[in-house]
C-alpha cells in the first residue's frame, strides 16, 4: 500500500487512527503491529510471513546474544544473525543478479530463479541487523517483549521506504511515548507536506522522465533537462516518503531521525551524503565503515574501505551494475575530496555548489540507467558524445511546459521556504489559521491528483 493512495489516506489511515486513539495505552503497540501487518499484507500477502519469520529470528537471536554477552557464544549468535539476514537479502534480492553475471562470465546458462523481491526487505533486514549488532555491542538491551520488537521492525510508516530507524533510537518510545496535540499537529503537517512533495512535484517530474525515455527527438539539452528532472524527482519522491514516515511516526508518538537535510545546498559530495538518505549513510558508517577501520588506518586502507562501503551502498539500492557504478562514482569523489581537493573546495565560493550539482546530476542518470550501454549512452550524450543536436523541438516544448514546475522544485529543494515562514511569523493566530488552511488545500490538491488516477510510481520496489 502506498502512502500516496486513496486506499491509504481515506480507508486505512482513518481506521488505524480511530482504533489507535480509542484503545487503552497498553494496547496501542498491538494496534500498530496489527495495522502494520495489514499494511504489508495488502501489498505482499505472501511475504508478510517472511517478514514475521525474520522478526522472530531477530527476537530469538537478540535474546541469545544478550544472554551470552561477554561470552564467545554471543559472537556466534551475532554471526548467525548477520549470516541469516544477509542470506535472506542475498537470496531474494541478488540471486538472479549473481546468476546472470555468472552466466555472462562462464558462458553457461544457469536458469534464473525469477525470485520476486519482497517490498521493504532491504529496510527491515538492515533494522534487524542493527538491532542484533547493537545488542551485541551492549548499546541496547534485548527487547523481551516479542510484540514490541515486531512493532519496531514492521512499523508501517517506515516499513517500505525507510528511513532506517535504529532500535536504540526508539527503544524507550516503544515502552512509553508522548501523545500530544503538539506532536500530532507536527506529524500531520509533515505528512501532508510529504504527500505534496510526492504527488504534486515528484510524480509530475517522473512523468517528464518517462516521456524523455521514449522520445524520438532527443538532444543534448534534453538529456540535461531529463537529468535535472530525474534528480529532483528522486529527491522529492524519497524525501517526500521520508517526510510522510516521520509525520506518521509523530502522529503515533514516535520520533524518527531526519533522513534528508536539503542535500543540494552542499558544497561537497561528502557534505551531500551527510544530508542525503542520512539513515542509510549513517548505517553503513556505523556497521561497515567503522568496523572496517574507518579513518583510523592508513590512506590505502581508507581508500579500500570507502570503495567497499560505496559499492555496497550502490548495491543496496538495487541488484544491477549501474547501482554499483553509481556508488563507486560517489566513492571516487569522496576519496578525491578526502585526499586531494577537499580543502580547496572549502575556500572557493559558488564553484563547489556547481561541482556538487553537476556530479549529482550525472550520478542520478547513472542511477536511472536500465543497462550499462544505456548508462554510457546517456552520460556521454549529456556531454555531446551522442549523435544529437544541441536542442530539439521536443526539448523546447517540455522545457516550456515543465519549466515552472522545475523552478518550483529547485526552490523547494532549498531551505528558502522554511526560512521564509520562520522569519515571517504573521502573528501566532494568523499563522495557525494560514497554516491550517494551507494544509487543507494541499490535502485537497493531493486528493485531486490521486482521484484523477495520475502517474504515481513506487520507486523503491528494487530497494
Amino acid at each position, binding site marked *: 500500500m502506498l502512502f500516496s493512495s486513496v486506499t491509504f*489516506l481515506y480507508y486505512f489511515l482513518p481506521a488505524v*487512527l480511530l482504533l489507535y486513539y480509542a484503545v487503552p495505552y497498553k494496547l496501542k503497540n498491538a494496534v500498530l503491529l496489527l495495522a502494520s501487518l495489514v499494511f504489508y499484507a495488502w501489498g505482499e*500477502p505472501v511475504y508478510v510471513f517472511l517478514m514475521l519469520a525474520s522478526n522472530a529470528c531477530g527476537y530469538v537471536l537478540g535474546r541469545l546474544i544478550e544472554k551470552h554477552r561477554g561470552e564467545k557464544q554471543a559472537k556466534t549468535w551475532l554471526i548467525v544473525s548477520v549470516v541469516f539476514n544477509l542470506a535472506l537479502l542475498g537470496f531474494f534480492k541478488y540471486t538472479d543478479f549473481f546468476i546472470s553475471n555468472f552466466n555472462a562470465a562462464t558462458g553457461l546458462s544457469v536458469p534464473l530463479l525469477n525470485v520476486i523481491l519482497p517490498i521493504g526487505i532491504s529496510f527491515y533486514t538492515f533494522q534487524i541487523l542493527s538491532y542484533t549488532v547493537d545488542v551485541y555491542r551492549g548499546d541496547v538491551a534485548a527487547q523481551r517483549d516479542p510484540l514490541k520488537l515486531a512493532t519496531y521492525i514492521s512499523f508501517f510508516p517506515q516499513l517500505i521506504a525507510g528511513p532506517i530507524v535504529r532500535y536504540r533510537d526508539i527503544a524507550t518510545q516503544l515502552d512509553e511515548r508522548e501523545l500530544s496535540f503538539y506532536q500530532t*499537529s507536527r506529524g*500531520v503537517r509533515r505528512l501532508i507536506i510529504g504527500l505534496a512533495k510526492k504527488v504534486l512535484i515528484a510524480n509530475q517530474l517522473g512523468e517528464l522522465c518517462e516521456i524523455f525515455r521514449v522520445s524520438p527527438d532527443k538532444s543534448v539539452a534534453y538529456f540535461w533537462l531529463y537529468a535535472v528532472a530525474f534528480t529532483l524527482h528522486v529527491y522529492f519522491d524519497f524525501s517526500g516518503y521520508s517526510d510522510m514516515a516521520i509525520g506518521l511516526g509523530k502522529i503515533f508518538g514516535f520520533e524518527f531521525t531526519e533522513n534528508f537535510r536539503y542535500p543540494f545546498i552542499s558544497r561537497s559530495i561528502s557534505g551531500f551524503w551527510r544530508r542525503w538518505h542520512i539513515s542509510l549513510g549513517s548505517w553503513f558508517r556505523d556497521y561497515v565503515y567503522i568496523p572496517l577501520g574507518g579513518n583510523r588506518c592508513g590512506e590505502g586502507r581508507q581508500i579500500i574501505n570507502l570503495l567497499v562501503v560505496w559499492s555496497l551502498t550502490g548495491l543496496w539500492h538495487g541488484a544491477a551494475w549501474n547501482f554499483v557504478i553509481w556508488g563507486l562514482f560517489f566513492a571516487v569523489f569522496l576519496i578525491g575530496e578526502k585526499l586531494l581537493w577537499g580543502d580547496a573546495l572549502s575556500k572557493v565560493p559558488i564553484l563547489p555548489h556547481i561541482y556538487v550539482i553537476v556530479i549529482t546530476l550525472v550520478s542520478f542518470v547513472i542511477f536511472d540507467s536500465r543497462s550499462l550501454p544505456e548508462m554510457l549512452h546517456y552520460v556521454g550524450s549529456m556531454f555531446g558524445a551522442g549523435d544529437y543536436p544541441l536542442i530539439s523541438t521536443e526539448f523546447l516544448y517540455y522545457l516550456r*511546459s515543465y519549466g515552472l*514546475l522545475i523552478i518550483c522544485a529547485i526552490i523547494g529543494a532549498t531551505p528558502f521556504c522554511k526560512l521564509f515562514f520562520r522569519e515571517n511569523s504573521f502573528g501566532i493566530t494568523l499563522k495557525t489559521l494560514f497554516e491550517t488552511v494551507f494544509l487543507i488545500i494541499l490535502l*485537497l490538491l493531493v486528493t485531486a491528483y490521486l482521484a484523477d488516477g495520475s502517474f504515481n510510481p513506487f520507486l523503491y520496489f528494487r530497494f
Partner: protein
Amino acid sequence: MKDRITCFALALCLLCGSLLCLFREKPDFSESERRVLAKFPETTAQSFFSGDFADGFEEYATDTFPFREYLRSVKAHVSRAVFNLSDNNGIFKENAHITKLDYPLNMPMLDHAAERFDFINRTYLEGKNTRVFLSIIPDKNYFLDVLKLDYEKLCSYMREKMPYASYIDIFPKLELEHYYLTDSHWRQNRIYPVAETIANALGADISATYSESFLPDPFYGVYAGQSALKVMPDSIIYLENDTLSSCTVTSFDTGKPEKAEMYDMEKAKGRDPYEMFLSGGSSLLTIENPNAKEKRELVIFRDSFASSLAPLLVPGYSKITLVDIRYIQSAMLGNFVDFENADVLFLYSTSMLNASLAFK
C-alpha cells in the same frame, strides 16, 4: 490551542473523506471520460494472495472517489494555471480548442496500415478496372502550437507505400476553425471545399445546394470531459437537401441489410452526438442515391471523419460504400463489396494511421 485546531481540522477532513468513501453511492460510469468505472474486486483467497484484490480495490477506490469529477477539474486547473503545464493527461488546451497530443510518429503503425491497404489492393482491386485514391486528413494538432507529428513524413511515407493510389492533398483546404472546439472531428458545414477537392480528383460532379440545420443541444466533444476543464460548447450543424433526403442508407453490421440514417437523431441525443452522421461507427454501410446523374460507385475505406464527409460526395455517385476495417476483417470484404469499375478512396486521419493497430 493552535495545535488542536490543526489536528481537528485535518482529522475532520480525513474522516469526512473516509465516511464519504464508505457511504456515498458509487457511480458505474464516468460521463466525462466516457468509460465504465472500476467495480469492487472479487473477494476470494486467490485474488487476495495474488495481489489482484489490492490492485482492484485501489482502482475501485480511485475511480469511485466522492466528487471525483470536481477533483479532476481541480487537478486540471492546477496543472494548467499553477504549474503552467501545457497538457493534462495528454489533453492540451489552446484558447478554446482542446485536443489530445498525438506524438510521436509511430512507424510500425504506419507500416501496419500500409500492409492492410496493400492486402486490400492485391486481393480486390488489381485487375478490377478500379481507380484508387489516397487522401489523408490532418488532425487538428496540425494547426495548433503543440508537440505534433511529422505530417510531411507521414504523408510521404504513406504515398511511397501506396504507389497504386493517387494522392489527393486536402491539407491546404483545412484550417483550425474547420474542426470542433472540443472534439477531434471536423465540422460538416465547413468541409465542402475538401469534398470538392476530392470529387475533382475523382472526376465526380458533386455540386449541390444545401441548407444548414442545427442540433438544439450544445455539443461537448470527446475531449471536453477528458480535459476536465471549463470549455465552450459547439453546436453541430449538418447539411440537408432533397438529394440526401431521397437516399437510402443501409448498414450491414449484423451481416444482414438494415436501414440506417444519414443523420441519426437518436444518436444526436446520445453520449457522442457526432455519431449522428451515418449513425456512427459501422463496419459496412452503403448510401444509395436514386437521383444520381450517372451510375457510378465509390468505395471509401475510412474512419469516423468520413461519416460527415461522405454525404457531401453523394451527388456525384449512385452508390457509396463505406468500409471500416477496424470492425470487419479485410479478408471478408469480397463477400459484401463489389469493387468492379468502382472508384476506391482510402480516406484516413493522421491520428488513425498513427494508431492503426485495430485495422483488420
